[in-house]
Structures are given as C-alpha cells and as structure tokens.
C-alpha cells in the first residue's frame, strides 16, 4: 500500500466533503498555509465534523507522525479560598470560614510532593484559589521548598491570573519581577489555565473581577521572554459564541508568533530579550481545550448541558487547524472522558495529558472520570487508536516509547 500523494488526498477529501463551504480550505490545509479568522469560523460552524477532523488529522500527522504523548503527573490545588467568584467554578470558597475551605501549608505541600516522587511522577502541577491573605514571600518560598524537596520533578505552577495576584501581594511588583523570582526559586514552567474565553463580554458574564485577556496574554508574553515555557487553554461550552472561540484561538496564535519570532532572533543572533534570566526563550508548548462542566455551578440550575461529544471533537480539530504554530493539542481526558479522548486522537490531538493524580477543581464540578488511571490504561487507549504511546516530560522530551502494536491475543487484555 503506497501512501496517497497530496493531490490524491485533496481529491479524496473533496469527494467526501459534505459541507461545500470547506472545499476552499482543503488545499491551504494540505499545503500547511495559515488559516484566517474567517476560515476558522467556517471550520467551527461546519456540521461536517469528519471533514474538519480529517483536515486536522492531516495537520497533526505532518507534525507528529503516529506519536501520542502522555506524562506521569500529579495535580495539587494548594487552596480553594479565592478572592474572585468565577461563575463556572465549583471549587472556590470566598472565605476561610466557609465550609470546606482549605489552604495547605508549606509542609503539607512538600509532603504531597514527596509522596508524588515515590510514585514516580515527573511533573507536579499546582494551581489554586487567589487567597487574599497569603503573602508574596509565601508563594516564592513554597516553590523553593518544593524544588529543594523534589529537584527531579518538574514544577509547573501558577496561571497568569495567579502571577498577577502575586504581583499585587508583593506590593505592586511587575510581572517580570514575579516571574524572575519564581524561576530563581525553582519554577519549571507555567500551566495555561485562567484564559477562559478572551472576549470581555464573556468574562463580564462568567468571571467578572478576573484579569482581562490582555493581562493574561501579557503575563505569558513576559513569561516567554524570561524564558518560561507555558501552556494555553480555552474553557468552552458556556456563554461564548463560536466567533469568540475562534477569536480566542487567533489571539493565542498571534502571541505565539511574537514569542517564536523572539526565539528565532535568539537563535540567529544569540541575543535574548532584556528580561531573560534563563538563557532560552519560552513559547506555548500545548493548547488544551477545556470542556465546561456545569454541575455544581450556577449554570447547572439553568439546565445547562455538558458539551456534546461532537462539540469536544470539533474544538480539538479546529484548535489544531488554527494553532499552526503551537506544536501540541491535548485531549484532556479528565474533562471529556477517556473514551472520547481516544477518538480525539483522530481529530487532531496528539496528547492525552497524564496520569493526573489529584484534580480537585474539575472534580468538584462533577467530572465523572476516575481521577487516577494507570499509565497502562493510557497506553492501551493510545494503542487502541492505532498510535504510538510516548511518555514525555513536561517540556516534551521523550522519556519512553512503546510499540505501536499491542501484544496480540489474551495477553493484551
């Protein structure tokens, strides 16, 4: 069997396309050309999910072949006390005295880090509420103590919103200062949470009081300049329109262009951004579309439904196609179920996240998937999709590779 040429592929896709509006996009996608905002809208509005998926799958394959990543990670949410009241959040408590409010101490965090280390975790992911009474020094010291305790584990900590919060706690410190202090204390990289949907209209509705899109992007811009690799996300499936989803993707893409240009400049000239303290330039590593879970939020009372499987697949596919400069797109199984995450590997995703040991935030909103799965479950899922499982570290270095084929027969069960 010879693999089809690009022309063959275009002809096949054209033959199968149900939505004629997609036809003009086939050649550009196959040629790896950048898609416009309008193209994005065409893709996301199309009901021809399979053609969109097929295009995304080709884009994925061009970059990653058959490899699908996962990692061995653990999430710790250091506190659920939060000054903001995001309406999609089932996790936060606004007062320490509220039932169920908690805040871990340094010792407790270190203890959990040590426990994670025993389980062979390579990454700890820490985010939490924006606790009004914790000091700036507490945060920096936490990173330092965790890094000291488990230097072998990559610390992926704090969303952009929390970086801003730290700056305020520090008495008006700049993003740059905060980021540099964190890196000096042992921070490895930053997760992509808190982006929600960039549209201010949406933010006013669902997370009034949280920083703006520009602020979120600015923190990541500075992080990249300091030399921190970061992820990015979008929380979809609530009040946002399809246009606002595409707008979100385009804004991420624009920032990534900037950051990659700085990286290219560094590679060409050896010059680094002025605020850089790490000797390398950062950028977005991975985009994670996050399906909104209405349970236990105000939206559940309004009868909001979970995102449909087709919507989750569509988001993965359109993200892959629009974010041509972000290497990885993740099917986050905790949010969309392990079953659908496997299917998403054929709709543009090349990562399924990790073994994720504790995820309180999503869980309190009723994510029903089991919080802890063994690596071998993920290996089975990836293989079952006809792909090659690759364990990675946080910054996408390959740690271990499995055969694509599962052992045949009963042994595979």
């Amino acid at each position, binding site marked *: 069997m010879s693999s089809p040429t690009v022309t063959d592929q275009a002809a096949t896709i054209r033959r199968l396309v149900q939505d004629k509006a997609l036809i003009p996009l086939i050649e550009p996608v196959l040629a790896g050309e950048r898609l416009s905002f309008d193209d994005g809208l065409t893709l996301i509005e199309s009901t021809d999910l399979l053609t969109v998926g097929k295009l995304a799958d080709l884009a994925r394959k061009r970059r990653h072949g058959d490899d699908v990543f996962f990692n061995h990670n653990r999430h710790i949410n250091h506190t659920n006390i939060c000054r903001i009241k995001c309406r999609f959040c089932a996790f936060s408590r606004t007062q320490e005295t509220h039932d169920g409010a908690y805040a871990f101490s340094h010792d407790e965090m270190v203890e959990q880090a040590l426990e994670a280390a025993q389980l062979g975790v390579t990454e700890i992911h820490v985010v939490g509420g924006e606790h009004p009474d914790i000091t700036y020094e507490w945060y920096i010291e936490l990173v330092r103590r965790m890094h000291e305790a488990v230097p072998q584990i990559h610390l992926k900590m704090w969303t952009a919103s929390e970086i801003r919060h730290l700056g305020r706690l520090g008495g008006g410190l700049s993003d740059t200062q905060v980021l540099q202090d964190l890196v000096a204390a042992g921070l490895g990289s930053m997760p992509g949470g808190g982006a929600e949907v960039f549209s201010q209209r949406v933010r006013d509705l669902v997370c009034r009081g949280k920083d703006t899109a520009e602020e979120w992007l600015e923190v990541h811009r500075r992080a990249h300049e300091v030399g921190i690799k970061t992820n990015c996300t979008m929380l979809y499936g609530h009040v946002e329109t399809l246009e606002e989803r595409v707008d979100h993707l385009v804004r991420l893409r624009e920032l990534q262009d900037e950051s990659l240009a700085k990286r290219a400049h560094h590679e060409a000239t050896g010059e680094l951004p002025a605020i850089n303290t790490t000797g390398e330039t950062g950028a977005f590593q991975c985009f994670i579309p996050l399906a909104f879970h209405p349970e236990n939020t105000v939206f559940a009372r309004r009868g909001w439904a979970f995102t*449909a499987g087709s919507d989750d697949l569509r988001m993965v596919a359109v993200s892959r196609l629009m974010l041509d400069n972000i290497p990885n797109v993740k099917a986050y199984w905790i949010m969309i179920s392990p*079953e659908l995450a496997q299917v998403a590997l054929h709709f543009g995703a090349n990562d399924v996240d990790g073994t994720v040991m504790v995820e309180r935030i999503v869980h309190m909103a009723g994510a029903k998937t089991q919080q802890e799965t063994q690596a071998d479950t993920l290996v089975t899922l990836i293989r079952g999709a*006809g792909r090659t499982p690759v364990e990675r570290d946080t910054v996408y270095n390959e740690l271990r590779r499995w055969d694509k084929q599962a052992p045949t*027969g009963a042994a595979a069960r």
Partner: protein
Amino acid sequence: MSPLDLIEHSAANSGSDADRELVARELRIGRIDFLNMYPMHWALGIEPTASGVPTDVNAAIVAGEIDVACMSSIEYARHADELVLLPSMCVSAEGAVGSIFAIANTQFEDITDVWVTPQSATSVVLLQLLFRLRGIQPKVHVLDAPPAEILAAGDRRAVLLIGDDALRARGSAALAKHVFVDLGERWLAETGLPMVYAVWAVRRDAAERAPEAAAALDRLLVASVRRFAAEDDAIDQAAVRFEIDRHSAGTYFDRLHYDFGINERKGLIRFLRLASEQGQLETVPQPSFVEQTRDEDDTLPITTAGSADPEVVRSSYLTTVGSSRALDETPEDDAHIERVLELEALGRERDIDDVLNRALDGVRIDEIDAAALLQSDRLVDIGQVAHALRMERAPSDAVTFIVDRNINYTNYCLTDCGFCAFYRRPGDVQGGGYLHDADTILEKIQETVDLGGTAALMQGGHNPELDIEWYVELFQTVKRTHPTFHLHALSPPEIQHISRRSKLSVPEVLGILRDAGLDSLPGGGGEVLVDRVRRVMAPKKTKTDDWLGIMRTAQRMGLSTTATMMYGHVELLGERVLHMQGVRDVQDETQGFRSFTSWTFQPGGTPLAKVIEAGIAPYAKHLPPAPTPFTYLLTQAVSRIYIDNIANVQSSWVTQGMKVGQAALMFGANDMGSIMIEENVVSSAGTTYRASTEDFVHAITAAGFQPIQRDTLYRTVKEY
C-alpha cells in the same frame, strides 16, 4: 458461637502445611467475626487466639494479647508505630461496598446531623472525611434509637449503618423513601481510589521475632482467598453461615477485594492523610511491611476474589455454561480458524483507498474488503465514507430516536450464556429471580404510554414455565388496553424456546403470536453469528442458521425485525465479518431487517470475562485486543459500508456513553436508539448510563441534525 467457627478446616485447608505449622507455633492470631473476613479465614486452617467484633480485636492486638489480626484501617493507623503490615492482604472495595450506608432524609450536601454507632471506627471517620470533602460539618451523635425514628424526628438528618444493619436497612420499607449513600461509592467518586477498610497488622515485636512466620501467614491468607474464589460452593457456605441469601452474599463478595495492590496502598494513604487533616490522627503513618517471601512455584496471578487459577476458571466456566467442550480447540475449528485468518491476511493486502472508492461508487464491497477496513487505523476516512453512504441510504438531516421501554419480563433462564450478567437459574428466587405478571407488565406499559412512549421491547430469559399460552394471553391483554401500542418482542432464541416448549414449529409459533398482537421481532441473541464462537460463549443457545432462519421466516410472514452484533469477546476479527455477511445475505433475500446495531461486550464480572482475562479462550492468541471506543466507531462505520442493504444504523449510547454514542452519528449511524425507560440486562453488567429525551435532543442538535422521535417502524412521532 461465631459463624466463622463452623468452617470445616480439614476439608478446605489450602497453602502449605509447613507454613501452617510455623504460623500456629509462632503467632497468636485474632479474628473479626464479620462476613468480609470469611474468605481469608475460610481455608486458613488456624484457630484464632481471640475473636469478636472489631473493637475487641483492635484492642487485643494493641494490648499485645495477640500478635496479628486483620484490623480496621483507622485503628491500625493510631498504633502504626507498634505495627507492621502483611504485604498481600487487605479488605477493600473500589466503589460501592453495599454494607456501609449513610441513610439521609435529605441530599448528602444538606445533612446537618448524623447518628453513628461507634462499632466501626473506620466507617465513622470515612463518613466525616466525605462530609469534609463536600464542605459540610454535620454534628455527630451516638445512635440511640431506631434509624427510622431518628430520621422521622427532624429534617436534614442522616444515620450511618454498617454490616448486617445496613444490609437489612436496604430492604426496609420504613427507610425506603430515604436517600442511601454508599460510602465506598462516594469515596471512589471523591478520590478515584479504592477504600481500604481493614489491613493485616502484626505487632512489630512479633514480626521481628518471627519474620518467617509472618511471611508464611501472608502466603496462607493469599491461598485461602484464592481457594475461596475458586470453589463453587464457598459463597453458598458463607451465605448459610451468615444467614443471608446467596445472591446478596455473591454480590457482597463481588464488591470486596483482598489484594493489597498499588491502588489499595494509595487509597489507604489517601484515607490516612485526610483523616490526619481532619484531626483524627496526630500524624500520617508511613506503613511498613513484612518482607514477602513467595514460594518458588507460587506464580499464579494475584489474589483478588475476582481472579483465580486458569484451571479453576476453566472448570467453573464449563460447569456454568453446561458444556464440557466449550473451551476446546477442535480439528474442525482449526480449519475454520485457518480460513478466518486467511480472510484477515487477504484483508491486510487490500488498498484501503481502493475499497473506499468502490464503496462510494456504489459497488458492493466483499468480505475481504470488510476485513481490510476492520484492520485499518484510518478511522476518520472510513467514517467519512460511512457517513456519505448513510446520507445516501437514509437521506435525511434528521437523526431519529425512540421513546420505548425495555421490559425484561423474566430473568429465569435455562440457557446459561457465559456473557450474561442478568439471568438466574429457574427457581432461584433467593438470588433475585423473577417473573413479571401481566399486571406488572401492563403497569409498565401504561407508564411508558404516559411518558410519550410508543412501544415496548420485551425480551426475557428462556423460562421453562412459560409456554405459548402465556405469551398469547399477555399480548392479547396488552392489545385490548393499548391497541396501537407496538410490541417489539421475543428475539429468535426466545421464539425457539417457545417452539420447543410448546412443541410447535417456528412458523406456527410466529403465526400464533402475530395473531395475538406481536408486531415485530428484536435482533437480540445474535451476538456473533458464527457457530464456533457461539459454542464458546453460549453453547446451549440458538445456532447461527436457526437464528437467521427464524428471522427469515418471521420476515416472510410480514413481521419486521432488526439485527444486532455484540462483539469483542471470544471472536476473531474476521468472524465479525462473517457475522455481517450472514445478516447481509438474509437481507438480500427478504429485505426484512429495519436496522443494524452493534456494540461491544460489557464484561462486568461475567463468567466469559473471567475466561478472557485468564487467557483460556480458544484460539486466544488470534483474538484482537479488547475493543476500545475506536474499535466501536470503526466497526459501526464498516457495518454501514459493508451492509449496504439495511437502511438504518443505530448507535449504542447505552454501552458507549453519551459522548461516544453521539459522536457515532458521524460514523454511519442515523439513529440514537431508545431512551430506554428501563434497561436491566446491560446495567447488570455494570453499564449504567441513563438518558432523557432532553439529552437526546441536545446531543442530536449539537451534532447538526434534526432530532425526530420515531416509532418502531421509523415513522415520525414528533419533530423537535
């Protein structure tokens, strides 16, 4: 006297006698006289020095009156400095445990006061942790009155019941209106981990003095549990000793696990950590373990009550399905398998693009093509072609669904299918066997009609008590009250059963039932229509030619029918193709199948699942890996492409979940099936998805289609 004192040690001892002598000489053992301890003591063959309720045994080991016991997790933790653990055994459950309930007269989150018995320290702590994880702190009181009275005396109250009290409360009419929260289930939902209720702890001084004896005891316990799992009548004995019915005992032991694996260890640590956060423990203990020294020849896979020695699984399976040859590989089968493998090999030679292009051109693809597609990893390409063909064969932007009810009128069955988690042997009333009477069935039909339903899917076990008269009377009664209500009833194996039971030919049976009101036949009992496979999974069930023959007869008599495939168990990939071939061939003759539905085998602790797990299915080395959602979507798409003469393909959200069930609409399906007002058969095997009309409308609309409620014959009932 404790029920555990009645164990016949001499008959049932397992493990090595040398180990037994060593342990008996060196260690004083304690024993909690609860049902959950039974499997570990069942074939241990050592008399305990002390026994009693948990508080007694916990106290005895702490006081040094005994050296070793299985004790409650929280008590162990309070004295962890003085204790070490045996490495292989604990008592745990991943999810529902069925004997520890918070019974509340409100939602869990709204409870303000709870009454507990101090009898089980671990459960009380567990309940408090669960409250805390939900952010509530109800006041705790000591249980001093009957639960029903306490719950009646005020709002937002709960009572914690464990053990026998909990089992009894489950069936109590006085408590039936309250919310039952299974703490094990809740714990799993909160933490994703099994809950470890008890651990085997050895006093540190004893473990240091007699390490070999401790290791020997660990081995003996493993052997006892393994033996318990393997012996057919072990659960019966437990049921008799503890005076509960066999079915309850079986369910209870299905939920318990004794293997102290990595997940159990994580669950224990998580529990202790949270207990410490809560102030129940001063520090989080770091458990230390007795060093494990396994026998050289002791290489059997681990010790949960669920898995066992392959030889034991084999003999138990053969007994269950009632055929000594069900797991054999025979020369005739060898030849068949060779042909199937040849089909698969030829498939691998085919060019996928060529196959797909032919299908799109309207050229019928052959079995080798289908085998090619089933082995491909090009899910989206194959899905696209399936979807294009769906738009041709069911040319509509609508996706249909039906509001109907599954009425499984009886679960008594003689056929003993290895994959069935639903049936009970005739007469097994204790075990939950039932036969609905006409009134019950009519009531269910009335409810269905009230909910806007148009039909009932009636299927049941092959119950020897039911002859054709029973069905005739039932159908006539239904039709008298609800003349337009559609009776989609009796799969081919049931028709065959009635024909044998009433000594009538199949056409006679079908004619009589049609005249009594039977409207159409469901495609159940098809499984995989290959006799080699059927001999393994259900040796007593209708064979392929009979199944297809009954359908053919029904169709010629004007009864419309549906076709199904349940795969992913003991069949080769190529045998799925043979199944589809059989269905397509009959359809060529009759055009009598309205729809085709495929789904994956739901293992859920069925005897067949144990056979597959143990690797003793015939031709195991040729079986494909267990099916995943990818397999499901691909197989459905291939069925749409290959079976070119059946108009409707139904997705199976019940087995795949709503997300994948909905995505399946892009892979050749044009129908979401039924909202299933009642689904007993699949939910017995652990699949418990539920949906409402609203969920269906949302799912279908989100996929870009128009939702239409249809009747059984695919006529529009309501457009959304």
